[in-house]
């Protein structure tokens, strides 16, 4: 039996899993995932996490504790400081390898490394090499795994840009046929670990789909368009994920094919509080309907459903009115 590495299906999993997966598989390592967030995982997380943190971090604790029970040789807890030039991740995420090991006793050995690409893209190779060496592999064995991993990550990002469903894109499955677009399109902004975690987001996307709405997310927007949208800002946004959310928000805001924007935020998220407000101001300028939804561990479904229904009702009535106006004008 080879080495078994446990990966929490939470937080940065939603951004970088294809990279990690292909890299570890390329080394012949077996990956054990904690699986989709469920009630028991969530309950474990809330019990273990420090109380002042945000919902996604609490959920993450639950995933780590779940892996603890699955007999793995290592738990992969990378510290991702920066994945692109001149940006950082949120401090809560930077600190989590230490916070998690301090708060969850008797964890299996932690496999970690600092991913810091703020100054130099080549750091990615060096960091992955460090991870591979911790597992006892040679540079010669590691090099092809790195190349394959980078390709897989790139493919995943392209698939997301093409509008593929998150779970399918994660598997590298290509977009088969694009369904004819009709009805309302709503852009849902937020962190990937909220948007694509059905449990944490209270199935927001499928709820909207059931209301007959097509959903687009920040991962649809190519990085070049995001940079272009943010070029006018007096200051650079230095949180990488918030940069994507804001740039995508601006792009969707001016896109006539997007009927409204929803910002799905989690209670206690510092960057969200600013980014959300900036998107809202932009929406007001372009008279685009905007709704902010804040989720926390106690959030009830009923309140969410009411808001979504009312929002979709509003967009439908507006769309009808606008098409009437243009028919007469």
């Amino acid at each position, binding site marked *: 039996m080879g080495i078994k590495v446990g990966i929490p299906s939470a937080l940065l999993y939603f951004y970088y899993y294809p990279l990690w997966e292909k890299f570890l598989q390329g080394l012949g390592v077996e990956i054990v995932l904690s699986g989709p967030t469920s009630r*028991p995982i969530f309950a474990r997380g809330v019990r273990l996490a420090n109380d002042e943190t945000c919902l996604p971090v609490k959920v993450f604790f639950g995933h780590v504790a779940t892996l603890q029970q699955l007999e793995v040789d290592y738990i992969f807890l990378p510290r991702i400081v920066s994945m692109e030039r001149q940006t950082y991740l949120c401090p809560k995420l930077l600190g989590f390898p230490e916070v998690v090991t301090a708060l969850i006793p008797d964890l299996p050995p932690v496999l970690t490394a600092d991913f810091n690409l703020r100054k130099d893209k080549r750091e990615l190779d060096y960091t992955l090499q460090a991870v591979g060496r911790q597992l006892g592999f040679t540079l010669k064995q590691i090099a092809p795994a790195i190349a394959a991993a980078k390709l897989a990550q790139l493919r995943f990002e392209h698939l997301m840009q093409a509008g593929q469903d998150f779970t399918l894109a994660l598997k590298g499955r290509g977009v088969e046929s694009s369904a004819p677009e009709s009805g309302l399109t709503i852009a849902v902004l937020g962190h990937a670990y909220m948007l694509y975690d059905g449990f944490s987001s209270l199935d927001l996307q499928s709820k909207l789909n059931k209301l007959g709405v097509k959903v687009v997310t920040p991962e649809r927007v190519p990085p070049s368009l995001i940079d272009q949208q943010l070029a006018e800002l007096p200051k650079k946004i230095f949180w990488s994920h918030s940069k994507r959310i804001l740039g995508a928000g601006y792009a969707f805001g001016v896109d006539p094919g997007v009927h409204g924007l929803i910002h799905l935020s989690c209670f206690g998220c510092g960057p969200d509080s600013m980014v959300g407000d900036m998107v809202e101001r932009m929406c007001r300028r372009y008279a685009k309907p905007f709704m902010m939804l804040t989720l926390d561990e*106690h959030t009830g479904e009923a309140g969410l459903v009411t808001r979504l229904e*009312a929002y979709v009702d509003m967009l439908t009535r507006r769309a009808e009115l606008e098409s009437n106006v243009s028919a007469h004008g």
Partner: protein
Amino acid sequence: MNKLYLGVDVGSVSTNLVLMDDFGAVNQGLYLRTQGRPLEAIQKGLAQLKLGGGEISGVGTTGSARNLAAAVLGADVVKNEITAHAVAASAQVPGVQTILEIGGQDSKIIILRDGVVSDFAMNTVCAAGTGSFLDQQAGRLNIAIEDFGEIALTAQMPVRIAGRCSVFAESDMIHKQQLGHHMPDILAGLCEAMVRNYLNNVGKGKDIQGPVVFQGGVAANKGIRKAFEQALGLPIIVPDNFSVMGALGSAILAREAVSSGKTSKFRGVNVTSGNFAATSFECSGCANLCEIVQIGLEEKVLARWGDRCGKWGVEQSTSAASGASA
């Protein structure tokens, strides 16, 4: 026989029923306390309705228990509170551009332009500044909630009370009492604090333009009404049926839903005698352990909800759900 439309709004604090005639006039409006037992409140309300020779030809439900009410009554339309309130206000005050709604546990603002909702917001995580808090404070000061507004209007110099959080507001009020301020000044101060809080939180960034309609149970409070007028510098209209606007909106939507000659799904007024029961169980099908709620009439299961995967759905509940998305 006269055609009547029944609108039912089952909220956390109150359950309201409206009987509306074919011309949109309110025949009867009932405001009942839900008291945590929505099923009983609906049945009690139905029993109190006087049809007077009319016939119920359409039923609409709204409020946080709208699906429950729809399953029990057999509703033709199930709509969220925002839409229902906007529909009712537009009917009562044509040309309305802003709706301020403060209910028992939630508060909302709805902005309309050209008769269509263009923006809305609801209070977020906290219930500070809603009816329940006023109720609680009136109880603590030993005054009837009905007299609250009148007393506040007699204030000479309203005191300043922190309205951001109901816990702070309460300690602030106690402090002002101990300093010897008069009751009317304290009550008026509380009204102003609530309005400030509402406009800062719920009304943040909203384009408030007249005509402004104030509705929901709290609109009965003249002190709050005056505080809104002062803060906005606009006249505030409180419609006749301010406390049952959600139910009225549902009745209007019900009339719309059956306008094409459809027969109502209404189970009939004898629903009151039926033995409805809500039971719940935990589904052990997967790790999510969803709590399933099941509404039954005698032996028959009318509706189930609470499951994330949809495997517990029954036919009636799907019809209610499709009504919600219409």
